[in-house]
């Protein structure tokens, strides 16, 4: 459970899925985009090396009569999860709630819940072997994390990835059939705010925040034409935040008004 970030991710903001002979892609959700029209630029920018928050140590921000738990990792049985649980049991208004973090990081549950509120999502299925191609694959078991996903385009790739994410067929997995022309876009939302993205993503990020109330989350979208559909939500490491994102998070923590 604590090996959430074991597989090194590739860099790059956008990638198509129609590249031939490419090995399976595993990426952590981390996008570096120049912020445009960014409300945080006038705020204090933490130094590059200055940690915006301590790793492994969730921060609680009291705002709008509620407690907000800001953490890199909200996964089940993590320090952040138990911090949330303790506040819930004490009867506090805590955001996100423990149910939301469980739902958000189990891909099929996340997508089903999102689709019920009108957020466009990628069609998904559960399999133990067969997968239509090309597709995005997510593990679905105790050891899986949404930080790791694979895009597969041929059966050889698919077999290799499935063997890995199912622990040799022990567990089922979630697949998302995508079009040959699809592109995958990953970005970070901080309290629902996503710098430098198009209007559709900005609107969706706000809806996702309204639904799950997770202060810091990476969103994986599949773009087909001009449409974006949610593929998954994933934890975000502080070190993957851009300067603008760090500034925004820092400002929120320090109760600066910018919303």
């Amino acid at each position, binding site marked *: 459970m*604590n090996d959430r970030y074991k597989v090194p991710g590739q860099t790059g903001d956008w990638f198509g899925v129609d590249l031939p002979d490419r090995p399976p892609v595993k990426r952590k959700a981390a996008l570096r985009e120049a912020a445009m029209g960014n409300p945080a630029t006038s705020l204090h920018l933490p130094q590059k090396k200055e940690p915006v928050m301590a790793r492994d140590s969730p921060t609680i921000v009291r705002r709008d009569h509620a407690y907000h738990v800001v953490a890199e990792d909200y996964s089940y049985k993590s320090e952040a999860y138990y911090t949330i649980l303790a506040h819930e*049991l004490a009867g506090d208004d805590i955001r996100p709630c423990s149910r939301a973090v469980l739902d958000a990081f189990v891909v099929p549950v996340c997508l089903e819940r999102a689709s019920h509120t009108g957020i466009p999502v990628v069609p998904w299925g559960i399999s133990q072997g067969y997968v239509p191609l090309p597709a995005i694959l997510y593990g679905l078991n105790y050891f899986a994390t949404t930080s790791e996903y694979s895009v597969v385009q041929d059966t050889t790739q698919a077999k290799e990835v499935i063997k890995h994410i199912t622990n040799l067929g022990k567990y089922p997995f979630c697949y998302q059939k995508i079009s040959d022309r699809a592109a995958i876009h990953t970005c970070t939302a901080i309290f629902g705010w996503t710098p430098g993205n198009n209007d559709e993503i900005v609107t969706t990020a706000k809806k996702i925040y309204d639904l799950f109330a997770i202060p810091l989350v990476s969103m994986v979208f599949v773009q087909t034409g001009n449409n974006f559909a949610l593929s998954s939500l994933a934890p975000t490491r502080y070190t993957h935040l851009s300067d603008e994102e760090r500034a925004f998070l820092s400002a929120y923590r320090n109760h600066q008004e910018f919303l």
Partner: protein
Amino acid sequence: MSHLGIFVDRKTLSNADQLNALIHCRDVAEKLGHNAEFLFPVDINKIPKLDALFIRARTDPMNITYVAARMAEFHGIPVLDDANSIQICGDKINMYSHLIQKNIALPKTVFLSKNDISVEKVTDLFDTLGTPLIIKEPSTSFSLRVEKVLDIAGFFRVARRFIKMSDWIVVQQFVESTYDWRIGVLGGKLLYACKYTIPSVTFKIQASVNGHVVYCGVESMHQVAVPPSVISLGINAANAIGNGLYGVDIKNNNGDACVIEVNDNPSLESGEDACYPQIYEQIVDYLFAA
């Protein structure tokens, strides 16, 4: 005719008794006039078409059973176990917290964050909870990650292993007994009672001893043979979790009954129902009455 789905995972079916119990459950549902079919993980998309769902696979918030339970809830379909029960019972920190909130009798229990583990703290735990101590990794099932430790070095050895899987662990007073009561509760009412006799070579209901897995003995008990205080404690403990199907483990030394744990998705295939042949009828009726 109503349609019952029995959610199973062939990867967690480990013996013929479990298979027979599933077939018995399906037969009972059909005798009661319902359609019943087994659903496997790849059949998740059939859940919206069901009238009720009975999950009979190893439950955990991180596995496919949680997806099945949530899918049923999204579509307003009655489900055992519900996602809330899976979330609470799947995590002993959460489960004990609920029991403590309702003042359910427990062995002395402490939750320890990995950030708080120190020689001083562990020494203090031995002083206050006694020796030996029981350490539990929160999502353990079948006593898999439950260990008894006798000293500080042993504590650190076990804790180091468990905090790789969870940022918090459970430390508990050891309560010795030769058997556990198992009180089965459905919708806040007694469903069955049995005794799990603990093998003499271990303190757990299931353990690996010298490379061999030893299991507890199971003895179904009529209600009249169970102390009323044990039954009421079992029901109160189940109610502290929710309104579903639970198996409550209770130790009753010298009349001081205390809850060891509350399980969702309790075993029903090892003879627990010998004195209660109507268990599956009651479960199916409960689901369709919901």
